[in-house]
């Protein structure tokens, strides 16, 4: 019930925005290259569905694969750094220095190393995800107070026991934030990499359509990409509710 009540203004606002766009566009007779009408964009999406769908599927697989690999690496490195504090002191500043490079700058290297196929996109997504997951996981793992750690230790718990019973559960909410940031970045990294060079994918569709001055397809592809990201984000929020029920 409350979800309906909180959803209503959003739906109204969305409908109002779309109606204003459609009416305004039709009234002022805006040319397609300035702003196509929503109806035209959706029609284009339906017509091109087979090619857009195939492109979206490629992008989706690349994003998910990179997301899984990147979050696994990020979380594992965070655990290693917490278990070996000297390593953390010496490595963390290096990681932060590397992290100040915008991930998009690595796209040309990924394409040269891994080719135009899926591997280069998966690598970019993994790179983009690993840093937010690593930093959030690390902050979460370090959250338990030294007293709590000492208490568990005094009851004979090993470092692994402390990690498993105390640190990882405490880190989960923070990890989930990192995952949420990461999934968005993974999608962006994949699309950006596809724009520079790919056989298939939403980014490549956008890039080619821009080059061919096919504006309706650009808009339709952006629409598909947006809908896909929203779905991923929604799925992650649902997982979060299941995983972190104690908040």
């Amino acid at each position: 019930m409350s979800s309906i009540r909180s959803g209503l203004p959003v739906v109204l606002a969305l409908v109002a925005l779309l109606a204003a766009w459609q009416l305004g566009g039709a009234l002022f007779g805006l040319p397609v290259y300035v702003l196509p009408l929503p109806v035209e964009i959706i029609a284009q999406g339906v017509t091109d569905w087979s090619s857009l769908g195939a492109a979206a599927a490629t992008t989706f697989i690349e994003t998910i694969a990179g997301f899984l690999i990147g979050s696994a690496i990020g979380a594992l490195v965070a655990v290693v750094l917490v278990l070996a504090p000297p390593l953390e002191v010496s490595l963390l500043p290096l990681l932060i220095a590397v992290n100040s490079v915008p991930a998009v700058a690595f796209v040309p290297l990924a394409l040269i190393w891994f080719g135009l196929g899926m591997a280069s996109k998966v690598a970019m997504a993994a790179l983009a995800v690993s840093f937010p997951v690593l930093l959030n996981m690390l902050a979460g793992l370090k959250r338990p107070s030294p007293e709590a750690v000492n208490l568990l230790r005094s009851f004979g718990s090993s470092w692994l026991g402390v990690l498993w019973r105390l640190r990882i559960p405490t880190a989960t909410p923070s990890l989930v934030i990192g995952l949420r940031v990461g999934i968005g970045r993974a999608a962006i990294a994949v699309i950006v990499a596809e724009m520079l060079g790919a056989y298939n994918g939403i980014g490549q569709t956008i890039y080619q359509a821009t080059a061919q001055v096919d504006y309706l397809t650009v808009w339709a592809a952006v629409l598909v990409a947006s809908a896909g990201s929203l779905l991923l984000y929604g799925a992650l929020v649902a997982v979060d509710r299941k995983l972190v029920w104690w908040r």
Partner: protein
Amino acid sequence: MSPRPSAVGRAIVRSPAFAVAALAVLWLVAPPFLHIGPRYLPPLPTVVRDGVSVWPDLLASLWRTLIETVIGFVAGAAFGVAVGVCFAYQRIVERAFFPIFVALQTVPVIAFGAIVVIWFGNTITAKVVIAFYLTFFPVAVNTLHGLHAADPRRIELLKSFGASNWQIFWKFSLPSALPTIMTGFKVGISLSLAGAIVGEWFGDTVGLGVMLLQGLYFEQVPRIWMLIVVCGALGAALYGVLVAIERRFVWWRPD
């Protein structure tokens, strides 16, 4: 009392300058020992020499990308704060539009870059608009969160002392939201830089993004590594400026 030597050592190890020096040493030492080919990581001197050989172009590109990033960031940050404040004080606007905002944040905004370039052509404006758009969302969302987090009991207290809404906003709500807003700025500046670089890919003649693209076409790995270092330095410098501003003017923490 002087700090213990181990504490001093730790502070040195944690300093950014040390991190950069350590990375440089690693870069010098690792490739010959681990037999990493120049296709993957060319030796540091080669990369530096490459940077020196294109020095005037590099400087012009750096300047261009910096300008795009900074203008887009400043405009996006100002607009983001304004919208965040509007949201915080107009509940109905917030309830209608804020979820759309959160949703739009997850959208791969870079995809809109193509459309922005269609609108504005290959001008500096197109990149500024992309940088603006990317900065705007995190700043607006953080402004709203920061203003909402202001303690309502203190606002009631100030009201009971006869403070006007304007005074409460200016003297209490905004200052208590500033640390959160600064966090939004820090996210925004790195997105702004990424947006400017990607915006240049759609066609331009000057800029770090353009040089990256040329490096890809000619498979010049040393050139690409040189540009990665320059992009990282630019990103770190912009971030550092924000941190310095924060330390100087926003030294308090949120409650």
